[in-house]
Every structure is written in structure tokens, then in C-alpha cells.
């Protein structure tokens, strides 16, 4: 399936906006992705190996935190999107 890479992380995927991965779960997808592009690892995960709090991973239109996190099953037709959060204020 295709993983959509956000603009700031594109520099670590050889400028590719989407990357093809082979995985049955979200955990496998993240593992395949960071094996293909090792520099991505520290951008997605904190030192304790957890997904950084501001990194959102969506399967189609669903947040994996509301599915089964790393155990969320994936189908070939799914689209996975990685989007860092956007917030702030005066």
C-alpha cells in the first residue's frame, strides 16, 4: 500500500511524496518504512520507541489511536497518511 509522506519528512525519503510498503499491520508498515529510510526513525519515534505525540498516523480517514495502534490491520487498498499536528495561538 501507499504511505503518504508529509512535506517536512520528504527530505528523508529521497523527496518521495508517497512510498510503497508491504505490511499486514500498521506496526509492520512503520517497520518497513524505517527500514527503507532509516533516517525517518528518529523523526517518527521518541527515544523510548513510542510514536512522537505530535505525529498522527491515519489509515484512510481513521486515526490509528482510535483503531488498534500498531496492531491495526492493513489491506493493500488502504492509504496510510502521516501528518504532524498543526496548532498554536497567541
Amino acid at each position, binding site marked *: 500500500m501507499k504511505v*503518504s509522506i508529509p512535506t*517536512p519528512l520528504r527530505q528523508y525519503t529521497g523527496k518521495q511524496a508517497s512510498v510503497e510498503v508491504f505490511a499486514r499491520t500498521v506496526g509492520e508498515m512503520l517497520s518497513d518504512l524505517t527500514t527503507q529510510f532509516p533516517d525517518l526513525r528518529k523523526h517518527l519515534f521518541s527515544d523510548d520507541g513510542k510514536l512522537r505525540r505530535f505525529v498522527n498516523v491515519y489509515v484512510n480517514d481513521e486515526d490509528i489511536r482510535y483503531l488498534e495502534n500498531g496492531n491495526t490491520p492493513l489491506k493493500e487498498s488502504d492509504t496510510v497518511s502521516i501528518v504532524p499536528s*498543526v*496548532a498554536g495561538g*497567541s
Partner: protein
Amino acid sequence: MALKIGRLAWEEIRRHGEETYPHECCGVLLGEIDGEGTKAVQTAVRCSNQRSDSPHNRYGIDPRELVRIQREARERGHDIVGFYHSHPDHPARWSQTDLAEAHWTGCSYVITSVTNGSAIETNSFNLGGNPAEDENKYFEDEEIRVE
């Protein structure tokens, strides 16, 4: 480092801030980034402010909305190149909250000050640093060229 933006998109982000006053508005800037880091904005997409608990001085974009915008932009050959929001009755400068919550390095964060319902000043700040070293990120002033 510069942000080129079409006249219509420029007017749209300022109008959005006036319409949501005294609350903060927010949205996404779509376009292209060249090899030198110059961003060209073709479209400004409005988002709703998720921070209903404190909308006068905080904003948040629903990640689900971002996913949809990112997908639709790519189908048209565009990318997310930045974001905009307003500062009601506050200067058009980034705040510590803006910096703490910014994670799209290489993208622009455009801020419009709105006073008594009128857009006053609009400034752009490029987020520099390394996404993996969140504590070392920084905003740098960026020239806006309205074209």
C-alpha cells in the same frame, strides 16, 4: 527564504481572520516549494478551529481534515507548503505556543493580526530546524511577495 502568494489567496486568509474575529481562524496553504526553499502558494484552504475551549487565543486543525487536504492537494499536483492563523487583538508575531506546537519544518506559518474585526498586518515565519530535535526548532522571518 520567501513566500510567494497569489493576490486571491492573500486576501482570503485576511478575510478569514476578519470573519472569525474575535476567534482565531486557521487554514492550510497549498502550492509548491522549489529547491531553494521558496514557497509559492496557489490556494488557501479554510479549516475549522478545533480549540472550542479557547478559540480567542488558540487554534488547532483536525488531523483528519489535514489528511483529506493533503490527499486532495496531491491529486492536483500540489503540496502543503504552510499554514495560516490569526491573532485577534494581538500582534502578527509568533508566540511561544506557536513555536511549541509547530512541527512542519521547512513550511511557512503565516499570522495575521486582527484588531476590532479588521485585518491589520500579515507576517510569515519559516519553521527551521530538525523535526527530530523538537527543542532546537526556530522561526525565522520570511518575506511575503504578493503576486
